[in-house]
């Protein structure tokens, strides 16, 4: 049904792939898609999709304060920190 455009999907997935990986995944994902496309033959007219098997909704938490992580704990695993903040890459170009 569909041919997977590896470069486009890798970009959407934010995955840096080598050219060998791209070649391999293109082949393997095509084989997997050929297999999974059998779902097409199932008759799902007037069938609602299942996204979650739990039938309850809005299972709300009690409105009470609980202790959270300290700033040191929350920053403990970040490699690049400055003045109690995490340094991230710039969102705009040239930053």
């Amino acid at each position, binding site marked *: 049904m569909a041919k997977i455009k590896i470069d486009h*999907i890798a970009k959407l*997935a934010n995955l840096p792939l080598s050219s060998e*990986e791209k070649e391999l*995944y293109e082949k393997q994902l095509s084989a*997997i898609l050929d297999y999974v496309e*059998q*779902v097409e033959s199932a008759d799902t007219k007037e069938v609602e999709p299942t996204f979650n098997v739990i039938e309850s909704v809005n299972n709300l938490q009690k409105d009470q304060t609980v202790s959270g992580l300290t700033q040191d704990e929350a920053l403990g695993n970040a490699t*690049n920190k400055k003045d109690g903040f995490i340094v991230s890459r710039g969102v705009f170009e040239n930053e």
Partner: protein
Amino acid sequence: MNDITSLSLTHTIIDLKDKKFSPQELNTAYLARIQKLNPKLNAYLHLNESSDKIPVAIKDLISVKDLPMTCGSRILEGYVPPYNATVVNKLASNGISIIGKTNLDEFAMGSSGENSAYSPAKNPWDTTKVPGGSSSGSAVAVSADLCAFALGTDTGGSIRQPASLCGVVGLKPSYGRVSRYGAQAMASSLDQIGPITKTVEDAKLVLSWIEGEDGQDNNVVSKSKIQSPPLKNLKGAKVGIPIEYFREGLDSEVEKVVKAAINKLKDLGAEVVEVSLPNTKYAVSVYYLIMASEVSSNLARYDGIRFGQDRSKFGPETKRRIMLGTFALSTGYFDDYFIKAAKVRTLIRNDFKEAFKKCDVIVGPVSPTVAWNIGKKTQDPLAMYLSDVYTIPSALAGLPGLSVPCGFASNLPVGLQILGQYMNDETVLSVGQQYQEATEWYKERPKT
């Protein structure tokens, strides 16, 4: 020599109460056995030598405060969780301490343990064989008596299948029974934490400790809303046998062992009825589309900024699933793949609802084969995916499932799968318990 470490959790508790040994002696015995056997089995990725209560092994994607956690991936090398998962806190309040973190397929993606970035765990019955996956180290640790019990996670079979291949008990509770707070999310509409144990009563006990609301996992159903009376006696109970689980693909020796187990249930008074789950043929496809989609979304959090390394450190299977899921969710394909799969998932749930009108539990094989040679399926992802064909449908329906040891084929363990209605974990456990008492396969241990 190995007396203490061979005890079930239930017996360990009794003997500790009777002061037959101290918690220190218990931990010393387990640590000594781990030091001796782990170099060969690679069940543990990290040990906690200060464990001082009844020792549990925790799959290394469940957070334990101040113990390193890798999720079996290079991307989390050096990561140390600053908090405990809910299940870890619940175990601690029941006199349990963590003896170590166990090996797994990277981010719980795999059926053999071979996708671990830290080399695979080995099957204690034959170290040239895979232990199953993804909770490979947890099943190996229980099977080789390297812990009193373990926790794993099951998304498409990751507790039941390694339990079956290693000859121990594994329970995937109903979806929503146990909070996943603090466990790395793989596919959130499927993931469930559960026990891997030496006996069925141990699994029941551990479930009673870890289940229930915590205010952190919105999917957990309140204990007070669960009404699931255990089946007291197999006499008159109806056991459903799905015809689709005994067709092409099932190894003939495994089939023989599972059918003998079904006959045993009949001897115990159960009435065996044939049931049909006609949409089983779509289950692996539905699962791979839905699971991969949820994986691609859940693993988007790995940006290497707040924690962990950069995204090039993901292993091959993880990348493959992120790519598949991103594709299934992408513009132009979302309706044909993701939504279509979600609709077929409804058909699979309906199959079970229909079948359970005719029976109390559904019984069949866990895995189509016994443990296979390390390396056999690593080049063929689709062949690997198909090894979960009997555990995936019930996962998609959110049902409870138990693997109980039921014999051997080619000298390797075979598990009997017992499936129950949604939130009727008690019936599944009670059928498992009665089978276990009548057969005692669970007493068999590998020579290590």
